[in-house]
């Protein structure tokens, strides 16, 4: 049972300090990333591919000499080119070695650092700092929960903190899984800092117990999935924005211009992954999260049925969740529809995320509904 006075002020205070410390560390990480982008060099592509094609040749040669099996799969490209995928099974050991190739059009940029070792070091420092920041951040979220012995997402401040943590954690998990996402570092850190900044300056609420409407196991389920979806949609949003930028950049280069959209330096765009890679990343995240977002809404409806008597009442928050859901559904359909792919679908994804943001900030602050608890 939640008692009226069940707050541990020391833990609550510690939580605040941890969140502030995390913000400081994230800020330093952000500067390190800016350094990485600024001083990273551009002419990286050629160097890298040379280095790695060397590796590739060695692997293939090694496989060949051991008398194993080797299969080359040819994949037809968009513009008449082809790429190949070679799979080699070493005789005796039963191990398979996969090597792969890419056509010219598919070149992903080398990342923020390019070939500059100094910039790469800065990038590595930034990643370490992001990890440190997220540990402090996680400590802040956990102590906040412990201070009141409940899930730490009962109001907008707590939700924002948890949501920013989900973003940072997702980035780190992807890095740990050896995915090529280091280039996402700067936008992620900025998004995390922005979210935490808004949370601490505008949404701060003292650690406290919850109103009876929130005493439910659904708080853990409905709100935590909403947090996760929010973090993932944010990441997809960043990827979509970068896709649009990179796509414009490619078109401008094809048209003989030398800078990216809005006069941005070409070297930044060159170091980013290919437009199709960014587009695919954004699609994958959105497609992955869409069923979970559906679940979040349904879990909310089940909770609403228990708390308010109707599972759907067109409460503003419900309405905006629905609007967001429909917008993402639009995006997923558009992706599979001729004539809507690419930029048009990307604009839909941006609109959907704008709806999501409004659902979180706008509805809580400007619209009164049944989701208004404990101030904001």
């Amino acid at each position, binding site marked *: 049972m939640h*008692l*009226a*006075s069940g707050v541990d002020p020391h833990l609550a205070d510690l939580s605040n300090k941890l969140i502030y410390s995390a913000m400081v560390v994230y800020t330093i990480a952000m500067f390190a990333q800016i350094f990485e982008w600024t001083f990273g060099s551009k002419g990286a592509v050629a160097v*890298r591919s040379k280095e*790695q094609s060397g590796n*590739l040749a060695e692997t*293939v040669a090694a496989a060949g000499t051991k008398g194993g*099996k080797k*299969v080359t*799969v*040819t*994949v*037809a490209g*968009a*513009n*008449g080119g082809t*790429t*190949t*995928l070679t*799979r080699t099974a070493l005789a005796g050991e039963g191990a398979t070695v*996969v090597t*792969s*190739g*890419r056509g010219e059009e*598919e070149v*992903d940029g080398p990342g923020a650092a390019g070939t500059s070792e100094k910039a790469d070091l800065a990038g590595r420092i930034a990643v370490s700092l992001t990890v440190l920041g997220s540990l402090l951040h996680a400590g802040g979220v956990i102590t906040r929960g412990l201070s009141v012995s409940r899930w730490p997402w009962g109001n907008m401040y707590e939700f924002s903190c948890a949501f920013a943590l989900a973003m940072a954690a997702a980035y780190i998990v992807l890095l740990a899984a050896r*995915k*090529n996402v280091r280039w996402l570092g700067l936008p992620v850190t900025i998004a995390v800092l922005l979210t935490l900044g808004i949370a601490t300056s505008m949404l701060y*609420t003292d650690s406290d*117990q919850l*109103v*009876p*409407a929130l*005493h*439910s196991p659904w708080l853990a389920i409905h709100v935590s999935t909403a947090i996760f979806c929010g973090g993932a949609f944010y990441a997809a949003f960043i990827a979509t924005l970068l896709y649009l930028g990179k796509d414009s950049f490619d078109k401008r280069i094809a048209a003989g211009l030398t800078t990216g959209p809005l006069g941005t330096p070409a070297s930044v765009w060159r170091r980013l992954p290919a437009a199709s890679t960014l587009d*695919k990343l954004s699609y994958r995240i959105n497609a*992955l999260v869409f*069923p979970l977002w559906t*679940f979040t809404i349904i879990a909310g409806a*089940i909770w609403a*049925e228990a*708390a308010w*008597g109707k599972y759907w009442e*067109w409460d*503003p928050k419900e309405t905006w969740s*629905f*609007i*967001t859901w*429909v*917008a993402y*559904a639009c995006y997923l*359909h*558009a992706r*599979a*529809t*001729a004539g*809507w792919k690419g*930029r048009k679908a990307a604009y*839909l994804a941006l609109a959907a995320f704008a709806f999501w943001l409004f659902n979180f900030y706008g509805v809580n602050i400007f*619209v009164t509904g049944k989701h208004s608890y404990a101030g904001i």
Partner: protein
Amino acid sequence: MSNTTTETEQPPAPDDLAAERLSSAPVESDGPTGIGAFGWARWMWRQLTSMRVALILLFLLSLAAIPGSLIPQYQNGQGQLKVEAWKAQHGTVAPIYEKLQLFDVYSSVWFSAIYILLFVSLAGCIVPRTWQFVGVLRAQPPAAPRNLTRMPVHAAWRTEADADTVNAAAHRLLRKRGFRADLSGGAVAAEKGYLREVGNLLFHLSLFALLGGFAWASLASGTGGKLMVEGEGYSNTITQLDDFNGTRFYGSDDLDPFYLKLDTFTAKFQASGSQIGAARQFTANVEYATGSDASKLKKSTIEVNHPLEIGGSKVYLIGHGFAPVVTVRNAKGEVVYSGATPFLPQDANQTSTGVVKVSDYGEKDGQRTQLGFSGFFLPTAPVSFEGTGPISLFPDDAAPELVLNAYAGDLGTDSGLPQNIYQLNMRKMTQLTQDGQPAKIRLRPGQAWDLPDGYGTVTFEGYKRWASFDVSHRPGNAIALSGAVLAILGLIGSLFVQRRRIWVRAVALPGGGTQVELAGLGRSESAKIAEELAELAVDLQDDAPASEEDDAPASEGEGEHKHEHEDDTPAPDGEEAAAGSADTEAEASDPADPAVPADQNSKE
């Protein structure tokens, strides 16, 4: 996607029709065909069921839902009051808004039109698709295209093994990998990932179940309201409910019979800190009996997230407040009124207002008279009302006070018209005065007030708590919930399962030896088809080892491939890069090659 501009829809060569259309999505048509009204009707139907129109409707639906979240709606909690207040504030636009049904967005003509059209479009698309899919399931996977090396993903080599053996091995391996495989005509055709289309159809069909659940709920549900002071009980009939909203199939005669009594109500509030006064716990301890038999009462509690289910109804705790207990004596000292009267909270601190109507006061100075009191109940009264008026400082009963004004005259209760029990009809009432000032008193529990002009006394005996409940009968929840669960399962299937086809053909070459060709076709977002094909090929080489002298694919120039290798830029993560590249490449159609199917235009 960078290839948007080069995209063209290329009709496949008749031979390769089999390879076409992994998805059974409708083909978009360009303009009206045929003649006259029928042609137009057919064209309009085609348009309505086309993906583009469905997309537009879907986006319109999300836009149309917006105004309802920003303008007060009749159907929301206390909607009527909020709408009236809004109308009073926005006098000029209110009639226009009313005309546009902006206070009733979700049942408005235009909102309904959008979702009905959307569902018609959906039905027009999904029903034929379901039949088509049933046909696909009953048939064998489409036969191998003639030239496998012209498919978007392919591999080939020469072997000394016998062609039939290789085909049989491929058939066996594909089956082992969970493919539906068919060996005929010297080639193996295989397909996997049917769950994608199953999921897709399931998702869209379950939307109809959801809609059905909604519709049934709106036709056959009813909600009643009941306010009870501690110690009171009621039978769930139309006469004893405070209010009731029925529907077509659940009217006042259909109310689930039960008896419910509120024993006690407890509330806990935050007593310190910045959220002081915030509610922390509400519990209604009740007794109830199913049916009309009130003799076998069962005890239970109702809390905010824990409604009580009795019969086919659920009882929800929705409000609470205080009911001061007042005793009124007339001039002769006879008790003319005694009881608890619920006062309605006006703010978060339970500043409550209410009235006490003494209709059986009797006579005063030979005239039939009634008394009325209006006032405030303050659970935590301030020391002084100066500057603030009578307001409560805290929602719990720390310093309870009753503030009363007294009126005498005719309450109008004898006219037979129903009256608001929370308001006095002031038409024939006059306020009692004392020393030329309106008579007014602050009472603490146990205190009494000698009314001016010898009207008798009012005693504030104490107070009870009251709780209000919604009694809700809502069928169709199970339908909607099953629809929702199936929708999620369907989504998972349609977004995470990849549907793909693989063909293997081994042909004996005229000069001896066997040519083995493999080809794969994945859907647009399919990532792993190239890798899967490679794995299959490696496995197949157990039965069909590549000829020593023929390390190279027999088809297009090996040199070209080698060359590409050397220029390649593999990502650090080989597996991912392979998946990524295969994905992008398979996704694009090659307009120069008729064997490559046109863009998979699907409704997933």
